[in-house]
């Protein structure tokens, strides 16, 4: 995005990308090679065994990071969340979380709003916030109408969410609900999150800002270029040292250097950029670079029904509610709870009520009968790191390319009060992890999250899994 802004302003720029251009053929609907499950490997990857850590390729980068031109937006789930105004004042709102890395932003939502709008129009977002009383204020409507709800949303989730007094609304999505920017509308196929869109209806840097930047003639994309150091002259960044795929070192002079290698990649690059002025890494004289890196927890509940409920009309995630985001008096600042992206069969093999067999005939029967009977309400919850452990910085391998890599370490200081727990406790529902386990039990089950009428779901919770 920065390259596009610079290139259209007439400034010549070079984008250094360690990976290659993404390739749809690399993973057409492959549940074992994609950016979400990574059972064999992530989809966009460089040969980490060769370049970073020959012994433990999975240790070289935080889980799921992309390595390709256009990066994470090629395969992301494309939910288009804006921060809420409260998110800019977390320390003020939640001062009780001692030892956390919480801080207020130096800018406000109002200052950022025009840029949210610009990004939403340039990249393309489908949404409608009229039913969301907590939606952050916006000056213009979304550029595209919201996606229509799925059958299971209309039949099960929305009535249940409303019965609980909450406010369901369509998830804002960086996907084309109608033809937009010269590209087709989404076909709503089964796999989306973690995969490349086969019809280019998922919007990211790949089909918006990067082509615009390249068209100006001012922007060169250099692939297989692994930046290892920002060169400094005093306080001024003057260029970047990088390796190519043949392990040759290059130098690219520059008058402006922008580090946009992801939250861990940028920290890594800054730490490697030592100079007289910055002996501990660029900008790291305070020893804070690479610390306090944030991620989110996933929380949520699976509901098991005694009839097929899932229409499998992709990509699955359609409805959300924000009632459990920011309730400072209850110390709750969960994030958002949504219906979940569909999973292909392998991802479902781990999803069983507690104490169920995880292999054998019974496991197979469950899979066969219940693949379409399971719904998931899913939350992305805030997760704060303590100031101290942060990211640790380690050196591995022997080749010059086996540069430092960062591993998230240390404890989470506080997980935002998780919505699922709150829903249960606040409503007298069962405690986390103790759902009923079979259909017979389910008949008598009082506690429900998703639906009270029969057919009633069994609820089993999956809490606090790392994202």
């Amino acid at each position, binding site marked *: 995005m920065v390259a596009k802004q610079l290139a259209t302003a007439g400034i010549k720029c070079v984008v250094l990308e360690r990976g290659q251009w993404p390739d749809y053929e690399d993973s057409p609907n492959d549940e*074992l090679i994609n950016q979400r499950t990574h059972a064999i490997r992530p989809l966009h990857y460089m040969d980490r065994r060769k370049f970073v850590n020959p012994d433990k390729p999975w240790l070289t980068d935080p889980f799921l990071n992309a390595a390709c031109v256009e990066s994470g937006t090629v395969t992301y789930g494309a939910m288009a969340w804006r921060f809420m105004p409260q998110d800019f004042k977390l320390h003020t709102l939640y001062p009780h979380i001692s030892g956390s890395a919480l801080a207020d932003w130096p800018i406000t939502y109002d200052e950022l709003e025009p840029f949210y709008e610009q990004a939403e129009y340039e990249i393309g977002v489908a949404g409608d916030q009229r039913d969301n009383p907590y939606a952050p204020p916006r000056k213009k409507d979304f550029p595209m109408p919201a996606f229509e709800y799925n059958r299971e949303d209309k039949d099960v989730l929305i009535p249940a969410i409303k019965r609980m007094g909450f406010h369901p609304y369509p998830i804002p999505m960086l996907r084309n609900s109608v033809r937009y920017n010269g590209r087709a509308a989404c076909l709503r196929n089964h*796999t989306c999150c973690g995969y490349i869109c086969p019809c280019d209806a998922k919007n990211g840097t790949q089909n918006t800002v990067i082509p615009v930047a390249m068209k100006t003639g001012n922007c060169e994309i250099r692939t297989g270029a692994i930046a290892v150091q920002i060169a400094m002259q005093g306080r001024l960044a003057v260029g970047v040292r990088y390796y190519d795929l043949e392990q040759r070192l290059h130098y690219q002079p520059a008058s402006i250097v922008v580090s946009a290698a992801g939250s861990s990649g940028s920290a890594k690059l800054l730490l490697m950029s030592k100079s007289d002025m910055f002996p501990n890494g660029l900008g790291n004289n305070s020893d804070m670079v690479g610390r306090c890196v944030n991620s989110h927890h996933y929380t949520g509940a699976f509901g098991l029904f005694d009839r097929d409920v899932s229409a499998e009309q992709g990509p699955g995630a359609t409805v959300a509610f924000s009632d459990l985001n920011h309730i400072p008096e209850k110390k709750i600042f969960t994030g958002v709870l949504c219906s979940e992206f569909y999973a292909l069969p392998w991802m479902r093999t781990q999803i069983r009520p507690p104490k169920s067999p995880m292999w054998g005939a019974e496991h197979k029967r469950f899979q066969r009968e219940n693949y379409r009977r399971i719904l998931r309400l899913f939350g992305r919850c805030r997760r704060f790191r303590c100031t101290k452990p942060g990211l640790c910085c380690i050196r591995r391998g022997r080749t010059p390319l086996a540069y430092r890599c960062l591993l998230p370490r240390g404890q989470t200081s506080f997980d935002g009060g998780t919505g699922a727990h709150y829903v249960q406790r606040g409503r007298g529902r069962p405690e986390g992890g103790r759902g009923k386990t079979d259909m017979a039990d389910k008949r008598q089950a009082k506690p429900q999250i998703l639906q009270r009428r029969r057919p009633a779901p069994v609820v089993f919770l999956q809490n606090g899994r790392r994202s």
Partner: protein
Amino acid sequence: MLDRPSEQIIPADDQWGGATDAEVINYIENWVGKYYPEMSPIYKRGIAAVQKASNRLYSKNFQDVEFAAQTEFLKKMEAGLLDGQDWTEIAQKYFFEEIRVRSMQGFYGPPRHGGNKNYMSYKMCGLEMPHLLGQNRY
């Protein structure tokens, strides 16, 4: 030999084939051979331990033991209850989990890696395969 424990993990039933019919063993061989050759010694040690333990209990190699006894064997292995003398080179629970996870991936994952022959598990779950572009409705 690994096709036998795999068949235990996902056995055939009246309607649908199991790991053997879906050629899960191809997947496991590809996984080790193509993606993680560094795991090959672990598999060798694991298979040797399974055979040793099987011979101790049944005086036969695992593949020659009858189905119900194989199930009992794997239940014990999952719980780490087989005689520890045979598992000095590799932990039995770890190797059980390795076989379980790989078998699941081979049966329920996409066929392009060697298993899930003819999209067997996808059909079993009611998924049309290969995916139709557009709205998959069944």
